[in-house]
């Protein structure tokens, strides 16, 4: 029994990407010094986007408020450092997981009952509420100044003694390791009974219920898992960025996550990953060019939705398919000729 997989959903593509992410780091540090950290940010964002796409690509729910969980992971890390003096990165991550789990459960119980536009607006609203709380309770969160986080302890070891380059490199491979594990888990999820059930619900809600699937519960699971991924990403992001500010929970950040995912192609497993990496570079490049990066971002979103709805991976697959056709027709012509 062969289930044909294309590039977008082939596990081998994932291996290639991970390998590339490992190799590109030193390459960049030589060719374009200073830009290799963008790769690390890309990896961290890819974790958030992977989780997000479980919700969008596989469950069919468009959340405009995923920054809420990302910000939650970041703030939990910051607050743990500020009030308890915690420095372990693994503990930050655990905190991010726990906070996202609880918050997504509470929010999800209500929000997941509604689909489509209601769901999108509700998630946007939740994110905005969190953002406003981060901003207003400044005596706890530092308001717009945010919370500063020093270099964390990784696997128990303090990293303050490391040189700048050494720390950045270490952080990159550490994040990459997390990414690899989380991507593998997500791969298993999408190919598990849960993954199939989500796809069924996204495709035909009515038939799904007639076949005994509990749509509500499935969507809730998907929501929670995607939130946890975003929370982990936030916890990884905070120490790298050294600063946790409210704009991590602002709607534009949610918009970035949405954009990354569709840029890569939300119908494919590796789409969000590719989208995140490319987006990170795009953003760094654009911000370097002009302050009007929202204009560029917005225009790109429009352009992609009109012209290239399947994203980059979709465009690649289409080109490959056409190439395959071409080869086949050549072969047929040769045989008859």
């Amino acid at each position, binding site marked *: 029994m062969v*289930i044909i997989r294309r590039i977008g959903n082939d596990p081998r593509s994932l291996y290639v990407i991970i390998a590339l992410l490992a190799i590109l780091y030193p390459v960049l540090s030589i060719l374009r010094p200073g830009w290799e950290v963008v790769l690390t940010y890309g990896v961290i964002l890819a974790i958030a986007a992977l989780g997000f796409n479980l919700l969008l690509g596989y469950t069919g729910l468009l959340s405009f408020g995923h920054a809420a969980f990302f910000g939650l992971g970041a703030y939990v890390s910051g607050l743990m450092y500020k009030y308890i003096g915690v420095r372990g990165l693994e503990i930050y991550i655990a905190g991010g997981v726990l906070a996202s789990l609880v918050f997504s459960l509470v929010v999800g119980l209500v929000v997941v009952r509604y689909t489509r536009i209601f769901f999108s607006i509700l998630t946007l609203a939740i994110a905005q509420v969190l953002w406003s709380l981060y901003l207003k309770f400044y005596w706890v969160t530092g308001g717009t100044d945010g919370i500063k986080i020093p270099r964390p302890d990784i696997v128990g070891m303090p990293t303050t003694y490391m040189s700048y380059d050494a720390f950045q490199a270490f952080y990159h491979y550490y994040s990459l390791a997390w990414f690899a594990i989380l991507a593998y888990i997500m791969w*298993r999820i999408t190919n*598990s009974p849960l993954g199939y059930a989500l*796809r069924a619900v996204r*495709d*035909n809600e009515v038939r799904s219920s*007639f*076949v005994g699937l509990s749509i509500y519960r499935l969507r809730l699971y998907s929501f929670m898992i995607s939130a946890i991924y975003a929370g982990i990403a936030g916890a990884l992001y905070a120490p790298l960025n050294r600063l946790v500010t409210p704009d991590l929970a602002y709607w534009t950040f949610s918009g970035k996550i949405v954009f990354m995912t569709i840029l890569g192609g939300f119908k494919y497993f590796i789409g969000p990953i590719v989208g995140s990496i490319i987006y990170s570079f795009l953003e760094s490049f654009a911000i370097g060019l002009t302050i009007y990066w929202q204009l560029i971002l917005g225009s790109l979103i429009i352009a992609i939705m009109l012209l290239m709805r399947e994203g980059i991976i979709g465009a690649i697959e289409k080109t490959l398919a056409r190439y395959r056709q071409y080869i086949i027709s050549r072969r047929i012509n040769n045989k008859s000729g």
Partner: protein
Amino acid sequence: MAGEKEILSIRDLSKHFGGVRAVDRVSLKIFEGDRISIIGPNGAGKTTLINLISGYLRPTRGSIIYYGRDITALNPIDRINVGIVRSFQLVNLFNNLTVFENILIPILSRRRAISRFISIAYKDREAMDEAEETLRIFGLSDKADRYPTDLSQGDRKLLDIALTFALKPRLIMLDEPTSGVSTRDKHLIMEKIVEILQRAGITSMIIEHDMDIVFKYSQRIIVMHQGRVIADGKPDEIRFRDDIKSLLIGGIYA
């Protein structure tokens, strides 16, 4: 029918829609292994009866006892879980999933593979084997990788029915399983259905309009008219009742 196990007992079941009595004081006993055809003119209450038994409608009055248990208040999904499954007249498939994946869904659902947390961590080989087997039984193995939109009408119908069977029901209710299908395919489909019903010992209630099919494949016929059951017996008993014949002919063409 005598001596067999009674699995479903419908007592004084009624469903009123305002002034209309869609189902009017129906009492029935269904036995394990029954192969029932429900016939009657349009508006007789056949689909409403199935809706009541499968839980998509609440009765105005009466009760439904299933394997000795009162299920009148049970919701549709829980009825699926205890083995009461129905199909619909219009084919409704997962158009963006392959045929194989279509069959996999109800199997996974039935095996409760999804509600267990562990489900995210493993692949459920058994379910996939069962899916392959089910496709083989229904003769759809060679189309496993295709999408429902690429199939012929008859195959789509077959797949739709296969999805219903994949839930391993004890009581299956099919709403016009051969409608919208060519005459030749009708018999092929019915043969397949009956073969599976017999092999697995599933009890069935099938709404059908095609009298050839009804008399060829049923073992018990229930005739409904204006919400009531007006006849209930073996095909031979029903076949020679003139009042039924004129009702049906009048009903079908009226």
